[in-house]
């Protein structure tokens, strides 16, 4: 793994200096706090906006804390992933297209080290982001609705993080394999089409990475079929490793695509 530490330092510097450690977690925090707040104050918001007919009555559903966390995760699944993937999908392909990769590729570096250093920094940004998102969501839920059991909440968090590692590995693999535009399309298709297919046939398709976000919530509810959970988790980890391996291979193979 020649040059791993040096490359890792470079990637961290980049992420840090381009404010990625600040603005992406901020996006997740806003997403996380929006559901508990809007749901709780829905009646007040409606009243304040006005124009409700005289004698209007609305039955607000009785929400459990876990319902609000699930709603927040739903936000991360769409806008959150979009932000993360769009930020990182050029990590390798853009470096090649601009020619910045040239000065690194001519050195005796290991492509495995370079790929992993990028993956680790992305994962760290992802970790901090969902930590901020979960924290914001849980904080307002606890203040406004009720408490969580800490053990299952932590389990749920790490289940979601495993899913996020898979998303980032797919994103980076696409970036190593294709040019930015194609990589973006492919990564979005895999992740978001997967979610749609999961939404349609998910009842029958119980073992897949796309299941993990829901399973994390079910861990809190206590309704989880544990064998499905473990199989899905294992599959996700294996697929993540496969993506990293393919990505390292294609990154090396495509080294000559760098602009000279």
């Amino acid at each position, binding site marked *: 793994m020649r040059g791993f530490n040096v490359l890792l330092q470079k990637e961290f510097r980049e992420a840090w200096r381009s404010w990625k450690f600040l603005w992406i977690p901020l996006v997740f925090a806003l997403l996380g706090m929006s559901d508990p707040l809007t749901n709780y104050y829905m009646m007040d918001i409606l009243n304040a906006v006005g124009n409700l007919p005289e004698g209007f009555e609305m039955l607000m559903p009785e929400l459990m804390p876990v319902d609000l966390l699930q709603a927040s995760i739903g936000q991360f699944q769409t806008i959150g992933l979009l932000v993360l993937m769009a930020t990182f999908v050029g990590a390798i392909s853009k470096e090649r297209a*601009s020619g910045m990769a040239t000065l690194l590729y001519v050195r005796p570096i290991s492509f495995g080290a370079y790929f992993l250093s990028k993956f680790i920094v992305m994962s760290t940004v992802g970790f901090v982001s969902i930590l901020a998102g979960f924290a914001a969501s849980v904080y307002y839920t606890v203040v406004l609705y009720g408490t969580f059991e800490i053990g299952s909440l932590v389990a749920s968090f790490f289940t979601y993080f495993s899913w996020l590692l898979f998303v980032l590995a797919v994103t980076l693999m696409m970036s190593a394999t294709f040019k930015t535009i194609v990589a973006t399309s492919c990564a979005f298709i895999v992740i978001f089409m997967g979610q749609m297919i999961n939404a349609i046939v998910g009842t029958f398709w119980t073992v897949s990475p796309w299941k993990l976000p829901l399973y994390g919530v079910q861990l809190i509810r206590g309704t989880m079929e544990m064998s499905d959970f473990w199989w899905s988790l294992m599959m996700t980890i294996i697929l993540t490793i496969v993506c990293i391996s393919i990505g390292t291979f294609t990154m090396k193979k495509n080294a000559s695509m760098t602009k*000279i």
Partner: protein
Amino acid sequence: MTTLLQVTSLTKQFAGKVVVDGIDFTLAENTSTALIGPNGAGKTTTLSMLTGLLKPTSGIVKMLDGDLRSTIGFLPQFPQFHPWLSALEFTEMAAKLNGVPANKAKLEAQKTLEFVGLGNDINKKIATFSGGMKQRLGISQAIVHKPKLLLLDEPVSALDPVGRREVLDLLKDLQQETTILYSTHILNDAEEMTDQLLFLRDGKLVEQGTLHEVRERFDEPNYVVEFNTEEEADHFIQSEHIGKAKGRYVYIEIIDEKESMQELLHHLSNAPYKIRKVERQTASLEEIFMKVAKKI
């Protein structure tokens, strides 16, 4: 002289189009070689294959002293840097990636940046650098690990005259202890610092040798006689039946050094007007370049 790099029938095709066509050459240790040729001749492609970034379609690049990637330094024509790093951080990273021990890398990077004239800007972000500064930084990242072979793609083409002069002087300093191969289409530069010339045209190596050898082969020396007016020059040609006029100048081809000189002196002594200057002229590299570029 010991050979450092040996290139044998190196060929590159892109989608069936031959860009580099079976070229052979060797680089001896601590010499500098200019790779010259018109645009599109395959200079950059050749250099890219030597760096290992581009796989040759066929042919062999053989480094006789260690592994290729760890013994070269490379400066692309338009080097691109990570703009959020400082010059020192980038150079230090370059050194470390090439195996300079971590405790020495920073010092080496500082020394190199001072050597290329960026001593006052080592902590500035690369994003704020001008074109000339980036070119210097490009050189510093290529030499910080003291490579045996330095490959430079058009190192001075993008610089203003002052920057060009300074970079050329830098390269001359490096010439003492490094093997340099650089491409250029600015022939004055090649004339100034080169032991070997490689002429590329349409991917083929059409001419090769030392500057002296190439010059011998292509030189068509002339005597140039300058008169005061065009009329005098014309009159001289008509009365003496010698040479070709071009304005106030008369060009006389030298066929045999001694005879031609005697003949010229004889004719000149007959001329009834003042002669401003008589000069022996040899072809500049530019003229040779034009001849090689057009040679079929």
